[in-house]
Structures are given as C-alpha cells and as structure tokens.
C-alpha cells in the first residue's frame, strides 16, 4: 500500500491489480487520509459520501480515464459543484458553488478521485498556511514546522502520503514555496496556460492554478490534463497544449541555465545556498552551460507585488458582503451595519490587512504614486526576464530563502513573512512558468527547494531540465 503512494504509475499498478471495486478502495483511501490528517491537518474536511459516490460512478468507466481512481487533493479555493468551497474563511461559511471550476471538469473527465478540501491560508493570503480559520497545517517532515503557503494543505497532503497529487493556486509563490518546504514537486504554469474559471480570485493578473506531486513526471501528467484554452476565461490563451510527458527523459546537454546574481545575495540560509550550489554543479556535470546573468529589477519585486496583489484582492473580495451567499452577520439593523459586521466577523486579520493595503493604494490621490507606479515597475521586471531568455533557456534559483520555519515564528511580523516570497514573486509578475523541486535537505532534515523559470509557454523546457536533475540527483 505504501508503494502505491509513491507515484502515480505505482498507484496505477496497484489499483489495476485490485479485485475490489473502486467504491471499496475509495474507503481505504479515505481512511488513510483521515488517519494521517490527525497529525498534519492538511484537510479541512473530507466529504466521504461524495467521494465514495464518485468512485461508484467511475466503476464501469471503459476505457478508464488517465487518472482513474487516483486521489487528487483540491485546494479550498477551487470550486467543486455542490461541495463546500470556502477559501478557509468564515465569510464563505456554507457556500457550495453551483458550478465546477474548469480544471475540475478536466480532472473529472480524467476520472480522478477528487479529495476536497485541502487547507490553505485564508483567501490564499499567506506563506505558511497559518491564517486558515480552521487552524494551521503542519509540515509532515517536522510537525512543529509550517508546510509553507498558501497551498500548504495541498503540499502536506502529497508529502504526507495522503494523496498522490494535488492542485493549488499560485499568486506569489503559493504552490512553489509549500512544495519546496515539504520536499515535493510543483509547477506554476504560464499566466493564461490554465483556466482561472472557478478559482476564487485573489489577484486576477497574477493567479494561476498548478499541480503538486511526488515527482516531475506526475506533475507533467497533471499539467497536460488541466492546461488549455477556456472560453469562459478571457485571460486564458488559445495555444495548443504540448504533451509535457514527452519532455521527460531528455538530457540537458547544451542548454543554457542562467544564474541571476540578485537571487544569491544576502538573506539566503547557508544550507539553502549550499544545496542550490550543489544543484548548479550537477547541471554542469550533466552538460548544461551555466551563465551568470542579472535581473536588475529583482529588488523591487516584493514591493511591486505587495501593491498590485492587495489592490486587486481588495476589489475581488468586495463581493463578500453578506448579501448574496456565505456569512451574514446577525448583529445589524441596516445595510451598512450588515456590510461592516459581516466583513469584520468573517475575515481574519491578514485578509483585513491586505484589503486595507489594497484599498489605500487604489484610492484617490495615491493611485498614481502606488498602483500605477507598481504597474510600470512590473513591466521593467518582465523586461528583465525577456532579455534574460534571449541568452538562456531557463533560470535557476532557490525557491525560498529558508527551509520550513516554526509555527508561529513569523506571524507577528507580516513584513518578515512577505519577504519569504522574494524568489517566487517575480515569476508571477512576469507571467512566466516556474517549477520547484527538491534538491536536498538541511541538517534538521527539512527539504530545500530548487526553482527553475523559463520563458512564456516553455513549461516543456522546465520539465525537461527538472526531470534530468531529478533522475540524476542522489536520493
């Protein structure tokens, strides 16, 4: 059974070799999730009846979908029709969307068994999975540590062996950073590669849904399934989806890998640096050309992000007001009271903080100095990458400046928390794809993550390089 949870291929072997019906097997899967959940709290809730029901329906499917019976965790901000989807926030208490997100439709078609609701930072605002109104998730590698965020539940569920894969969302690093901290693989696709329809919006110009899994091959397989143009999402791009699995097993001879100076300066853990440098050496050995490059506007990325993202978020979260769905505060006599009481009760502190930040930077008198300025800086950051990709095929950096920190360690210092996104944010600002994969552990046994970034729609390059690294690195 343990072997089955190593990767999707092994799982498929196990499940195809079973006589028992899928509905019975699904109960085994559910029990496994629940028993591990006691320690790590990666799932807010598990809808057992629904999952067993889906399993029963899939019984007769012939031919079987690509992910038949594979348990895939779904972050609590991706809409599953009829199921509780609440972004780990009380303001959406009881909300069951009447429709599926497009990625859910695609996973359904592939016959995956969808395990909602994976825990997350409330409304995806966070880097540690500590702001969920359902309590924090713990890192399976060390229960006193955070799993990373905001897709902390998704990452922990995969790393903890509860599921084979997961989908999460990444706005400033929310898929990559938890993958890095939990020692698994994840991909943030190019902006517009995967439909955002049904992803409860945080920052519309930055959000993307992406896969998390035990290895590069599984991530590639999942990406192939969820990517593609969606006419319901005007920002999705009408470009053919390559067979990403065909990029596996290729070498990296002659590929140029850029190492940006700005990502290797101060603020990085010594052990993180050492493991990433080892990774660079391995790439050299495998035949890649290593080139030193500069991404000069990197140092503005965090500020730029923390103006743009909260601004868009403040507008996207305006709809949570007690009028139409979710929580409506009892303590109110008129409309304005209803608005303020509901939002006060329903939102946690970090969400309120970002809404205030965002509203401020959009307000009259400040728009030009903050939001508009940030948009211009964003273009500069994007241009840095454009230029870099003229001379290299991909860029290599650490995913996070540190390994998993302790629960509660950064909660009192929002700025410190924000700075932990420093290496992941630029890819969202530039809209380019990025992958995070394990490249070793620190002395405490906590995973270190390696990040690769490539030009728009060059996920195939990322998969190729990542797989080569993974295949050749010492386990």
């Amino acid at each position, binding site marked *: 059974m343990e072997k089955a949870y190593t990767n999707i291929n092994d799982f498929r072997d196990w499940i195809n070799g079973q006589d028992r019906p899928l509905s019975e097997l699904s109960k085994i899967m559910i029990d496994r999730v629940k028993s591990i959940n006691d320690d790590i709290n990666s799932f807010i809730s598990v809808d057992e009846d629904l999952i067993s029901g889906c399993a029963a329906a899939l019984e007769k499917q012939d031919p079987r979908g690509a992910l038949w019976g594979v348990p895939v965790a779904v972050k609590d901000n*991706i809409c599953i029709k009829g199921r509780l989807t609440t972004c780990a926030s009380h303001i959406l208490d009881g909300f069951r969307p009447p429709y599926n997100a497009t990625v859910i439709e695609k996973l359904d078609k592939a016959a995956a068994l969808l395990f909602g609701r994976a825990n997350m930072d409330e409304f995806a605002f966070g880097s540690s999975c500590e702001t969920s109104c359902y309590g924090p998730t713990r890192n399976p590698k060390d229960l006193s540590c955070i799993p990373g965020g905001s897709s902390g539940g998704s990452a922990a569920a995969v790393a903890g062996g509860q599921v084979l894969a997961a989908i999460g969302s990444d706005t400033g690093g929310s898929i990559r950073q938890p993958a890095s901290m939990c020692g698994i693989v994840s991909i943030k696709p190019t902006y517009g590669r995967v439909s955002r329809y049904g992803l409860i919006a945080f920052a519309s110009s930055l959000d993307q849904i992406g896969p998390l899994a035990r290895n590069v091959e599984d991530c590639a397989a999942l990406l192939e399934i969820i990517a593609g143009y969606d006419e319901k999402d005007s*920002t999705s791009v009408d470009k053919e989806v390559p067979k990403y699995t065909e990029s596996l097993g290729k070498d990296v001879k002659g590929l140029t890998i850029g190492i940006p100076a700005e990502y290797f300066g101060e603020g990085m853990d010594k052990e993180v640096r050492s493991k990433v440098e080892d990774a660079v050496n391995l790439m050299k050995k495998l035949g890649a050309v290593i080139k030193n490059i500069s991404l000069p506007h990197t140092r503005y990325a965090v500020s730029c992000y923390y103006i743009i993202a909260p601004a868009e978020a403040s*507008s996207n979260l305006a709809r949570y007001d007690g009028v139409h769905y979710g929580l409506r505060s009892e303590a109110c006599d008129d409309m304005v009271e209803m608005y303020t009481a509901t939002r006060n009760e329903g939102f946690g502190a970090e969400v309120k903080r970002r809404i205030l930040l965002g509203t401020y930077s959009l307000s009259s008198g400040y728009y030009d100095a903050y939001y508009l300025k940030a948009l211009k800086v964003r273009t500069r950051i994007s241009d840095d990458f454009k230029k870099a990709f003229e001379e290299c095929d991909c860029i290599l950096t650490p995913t996070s400046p540190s390994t998993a920190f302790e629960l509660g360690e950064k909660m009192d210092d929002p700025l410190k928390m924000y700075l932990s996104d420093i290496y992941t944010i630029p890819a969202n600002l530039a809209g380019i794809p990025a992958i995070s994969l394990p490249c070793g552990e620190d002395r405490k046994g906590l995973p270190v993550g390696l990040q690769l970034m490539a030009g728009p729609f060059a996920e195939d390059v990322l998969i190729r390089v990542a797989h080569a690294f993974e295949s050749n690195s010492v386990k």
Partner: protein
Amino acid sequence: MGHRDKYETVIGLEVHVQLSTKTKAFCGCSTSFGDPPNTHVCPVCLGMPGVLPVFNREFLVCAVKVSLALGCDIQEKMKFDRKNYYYPDLPKNYQISQFDMPLAFSGKIRIMPPGGDVKDIGITRVHLEEDAGKLMHAPEDSCSYVDLNRTGTPLLEIVSEPDMRSPEEAYEYLVTLKRIVKYLDVSDCNMEEGSLRCDANISIREKGDPGFGSKVEIKNMNSFKAVREALSHEQDRQMDLVDEGEKIPMETRLWDEKKCITASMRSKEESHDYRYFPEPDLVPFEVEKELVEKIRAGLPELPRAKKFRFEKEYGLEDGKIENIIAEKDVADFYEETVKKVKNPQICFNWIKGEVMMHMNERGKAINELHLDPGDLAEIIIMSGKGVISNLVAKDVLRECIDTGESPDSIVKKKGLEQVSDEGALDGVIREVIDNNRKSVDDFKNGKENALSFLVGQVMRLTGGKANPKLAGELLRKNLQGRE
C-alpha cells in the same frame, strides 16, 4: 424677476441607454425585460466566487453604431476598468465600466430648439458599462428585495458637453438623441421602462462670465418632461439664491415629481472615490478599423439627413415632416407607399391621419399593424380613381388592418364599389328629396349647408357607396329643376 436676463444657465446631460442585445454584456443570460425576479441570472452576472466576465461582441457593434451616429471618434484600443462601490444591487460590488479610455469621444448632435436657431450640442464621450440590478423596497417587511435580472445588461453612457443653455434645449437634446438611437434599432429608449435614463448637471453664471458656477447634479427624473420641469425649477432656485447673495453648494439633488421641487440628497454615498483601475479579467484589444468602417457603411440614413431629403424630394413642409420621420419605420413605410402612389401629399395625409390613428388606437407600431405599404397604396389609388369613395376607403383600411385581407378582395367581397352611375342613384335621390322636405326648402331658400345634409342622406342610404360629388350634382340638378 429680471434675473433671466442677468444670468445664463449651463446644462450638461448624462444619458444611459440600455441596449437590446440578445444577451448580457459579460455572460450569456437573456436581457429580456419584465420577467419574474432572478430568472435570467447565472454565476457570472451573480458575481459568485470564482467567475469571470466574457465580453459580448454584439455590445461593441451596437456601441460603435451609436458612437458613429453621434459623430464621435472611435478609440483605437478597447479597455475596461473597475468602478468600485458597495450596493446590494451590484453583486461584485464593482461595476465593469470604462474610465480613462471611453470607446468614443468628441462627437456632436444638432438640435432645433423651439423658436431658436439650429444648434450643435457636443458629445464628450460614449462609454460601455454593465447595468446593476433592481432593489424593491418593502417597508412593510422591513427589508428590500434584490432582483438581479437586470445585472450585467449592456449600457452606453453618453455624456454631453455643458452646451445647453435652457431646459427647453435639454428637452430637445433628449428628443433628438432618442430619435437617433431608435433609428439604429439598438434600444427601446423607453424612460418608463428604464431603457433610457437621464441625469442632469446644471449651473448658472452671469452672462459674459467665462467660468462655470457651482454644478448641481439632478437625478430621479423619469420622463423628458420631468427633465425640463426639474431643470426649470432648479434654474430658478439657483438664480434666486444668487440674487440673495448666497452660494450654491455643489451637491446632488433629487427631483420630486409630486412636489415639483428638487431636494438635496443627504447621503453618505455622496463623495465617492471609485478607485478605478484597469479590469484585469478582460484583456484590452484593438478596435479593428475594418469593423468600424463596415459599421459606418451600414448605418441607416439618420433623421436629419432624412428630413432634408424629404423636404427636397417630396416637397413636404418642415413642420409636417417631423411627424413622419420621428420613427424610422414610419418614414420607410411612407416612402414605400409614395413609390407606388406617386403623390407624396396624399400619402402623408393618410399616414398622419388614418394610419397613425390606428396605431394609437391599438397601441401598435406601424409594422405590427398587418398592413404593408402595398395595401395602403392600393386603397389610396382606388379612392383616387373613384372606385371607392373616401369614406369607404377608410372603412376598407380598418378592415384590412383587422383581418389582414387585401383591400381589393375586401372591396369586391363586400361590394363596396362606388356607385357612380347616374341611373343607379336616381331612385335614391328622389327618395331623399321626398323624405327631407325641410332641408329641400332650406336649400331652395339659399342655405347651401342643406345640400350637404342631403348628400349625407344619400350616402347613408347607399351605405357610403355613392359618389358624393355625383350625388351633390344630381341633387342640385333635381332641386333646381323643380319648383
């Protein structure tokens, strides 16, 4: 009050036109009006978590049509912005609108104010936005009910330059604007149903002063007449205040139809910071020049052009043409009829008279009447040739509209041909003379009116079929021939 001469009024109007596209601005829901609450809504127009807008291209086409008809320049790039504010009829608590790059700008329309000269009113901008829903206040239930059917309906906001100088000019502007938009067949333009809404900005200044006085916004005017009355009242109110040495506070005032006054809207919503920013869910795109030119080429002849042409081609007087060109369908119907009948004046009389009477009676538009120009032409020609009398012609028209049958078959079936044969009328003439001695005597004593009465009797006895002219001649001959 001499202040009319001392001051000048400055008025600008903001008109919202609801477009009658098949589906809403950003989703596939129907835009139909008058259905039970919340029956054409979907997750997108309901603003549910996770949904995204998708732009309806028909909206763009209608918007370009209107913009070109208003003489505007068209923006090269199309971009949307979010206008953020909270209200229960706005599910996302932001409206998708356009802020700094409206679709169209720098247009103008020519109006003809009563008793004044032709004047151009500038159009500052035309932009696209989505409508909000409706709140139905139910004080008896201590709540308001929210109906979101209307949410997401495409709206055009048309902003005029502050070029109007009187409430009458404002009224004319609205009439002219409505006529143009109706010609394009993109909106019902019905203020009662809310498919056309108007807010006004009005200020006064001393004549000759190049600056602008304090601007007051007037809302809640539900008809063109109300706009004129509200502005007239407000103009006086402002002039009185200034006469007394008071300042006019910049504010929003609501028109109270019952009390005929404007009243200040004391509300926290007044000074709004909408925090506009570019809508990230809709990608900006180029407005293709070919599309604009295609639409321009396909524009129908607009009211002013049509009016000039009718004057020239049909020799109709200025005042009369207004009636016919007010609605494009009526103007088209008229022209089709004239093509067949070849007498513009008679066709005008028939349409202005009988046809419009039927339209009003039945509450129908001209194309809903079961009448086509060919039918009307037939009736007019038959009457002109004397095949049927004028009186009968009117009856035939009514029957034609009622049943949809052709005039020819109606006349034949009912045997309504005019009796123009002298012999056939002789008997009736004699009967009328015999039975109406008083009128006969009156006529003989010089009362010409009496003859009309007698002709009327002949018409009555022949069921309207007698040729009245002939009847008159025969009566005269008979009566003058006798003692």
